[in-house]
């Protein structure tokens, strides 16, 4: 029937343009929620929201960033609903000046190669889990998913300069946590 052809076209267009990014949405949701059922529910809601608002998407602009923005907003909404603290501020603001971003967490006295080789499967996810959300999300987007600063700025809705400082502190913090895990595994000795 003619009247059914249009909604079909619309959903096909959405599938071709947006659902090709389903994997990154899925992975990001898993790393944000740490719970498969919750992640799938989140992705499902984000996809339906995106589909309902697809007429607002400007073809030719970055669909991946647009979808991740929707996913993130939905995630923050759920956090808020659950009474959790939501990205009140960049946690780095409170410790700024305490340590230099690039020095923080580096297991001193050990070659970098040794430290990196001791990172076990699952350590990165475990360490990411411990990062404050403001840092975790930018590290996931930049270092695990390869988004540009500009794309990340769009997703987390803040200036590129803020993305850069959060990334810098997030990485330093992650490195620190990975260093601790390495010491726990006994592969790297406590810095003397």
């Amino acid at each position, binding site marked *: 029937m003619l009247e*059914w052809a249009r909604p079909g076209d619309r*959903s096909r267009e959405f599938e071709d343009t947006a659902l090709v990014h*389903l994997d990154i949405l899925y992975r990001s949701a898993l790393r944000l929620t740490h719970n498969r059922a919750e992640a799938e529910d989140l992705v499902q809601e984000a996809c339906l929201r995106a*589909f309902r608002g697809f007429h607002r998407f400007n073809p030719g602009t970055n669909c991946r960033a647009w979808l991740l923005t929707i996913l993130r907003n939905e995630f923050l909404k759920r956090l808020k609903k659950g009474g959790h603290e939501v990205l009140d501020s960049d946690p780095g603001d409170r410790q700024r000046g305490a340590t230099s971003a690039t020095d923080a967490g*580096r297991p001193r006295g050990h070659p970098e*190669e040794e430290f990196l080789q001791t990172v076990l*499967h699952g350590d990165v996810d475990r360490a990411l889990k411990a990062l404050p959300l403001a840092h975790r999300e930018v590290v996931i987007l930049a270092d695990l998913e390869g988004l*540009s600063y500009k794309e990340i700025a769009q997703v987390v809705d803040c200036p590129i300069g803020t993305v*850069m400082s959060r990334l810098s502190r997030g990485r330093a913090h992650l490195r620190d946590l990975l260093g601790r895990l390495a010491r726990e595994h006994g592969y790297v000795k406590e810095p003397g």
Partner: protein
Amino acid sequence: MNCIEFEARLHPYVDGELEMTDMAAADAHLAQCAECQGRMEQERQFRQLLRRQPRESAPPEFRALIRARVRRSARVAAIRPWLLGTAAAAAVLLVMSLLPGLRPGQALITDLVSKHITYTQIEQPAEFASQDARAVEAWFRQRAGLRVTVSDYSPSGIRLVGGRLAEADDHKAAYVLYEKGHTLMSVFLVPASAPAAALKGTRVSYRGHDYLTLERKGYNTVAWTDGKAVFGLVSMLGYDALLECADKLRLDRAQRFGA
């Protein structure tokens, strides 16, 4: 560029996000500073470690589910304008109120019409899907202790879809969904009691019973009360069809509860 300036640009350098001129200056500094070169290498290795993390894909069944939901959403979106714009649309909303404290005036009817519109737009309007009226009644009884009469309108071509718990006027309400062709038809039950005087609308008599009619957002509504319960019916159907549905529900309830 000196070491301090390079340090400030280390991350964007490794990320390939430096401007061309800064990039050239950083390269020039690295060529002559082993310490910064070493730092840069460490940073690069750290990035590589993160990039090497397993990249899980969405499972095929989940991908299929998302596709199906999007397609379904597209179909619902296609029905919606037709539902709102066609006088022949058979959307029926029935409200039965049993709890004290509810004032089913115009606001309640407007609220229920809004709810009906909302429910017809969501993916799964029925929490409990069944074409069996007794099964839907049993579900309401077990789920919320509500004695809901679910009428069988199938002889009129109106198929039962299922039920869900809703809220109206801050009260728990039962919602029964029907379907006629592509058009969804909804039934609500809001436990409350209310005097007949609280109902607003034009008084209409049908087969010996009084009903109040009111039009809201393009829907026709029919409401009535038996003292213990307030019933409302909202539809894009003409009042004749609505009154017939209302009469059937009234008869079914009288048979069931002897009211």
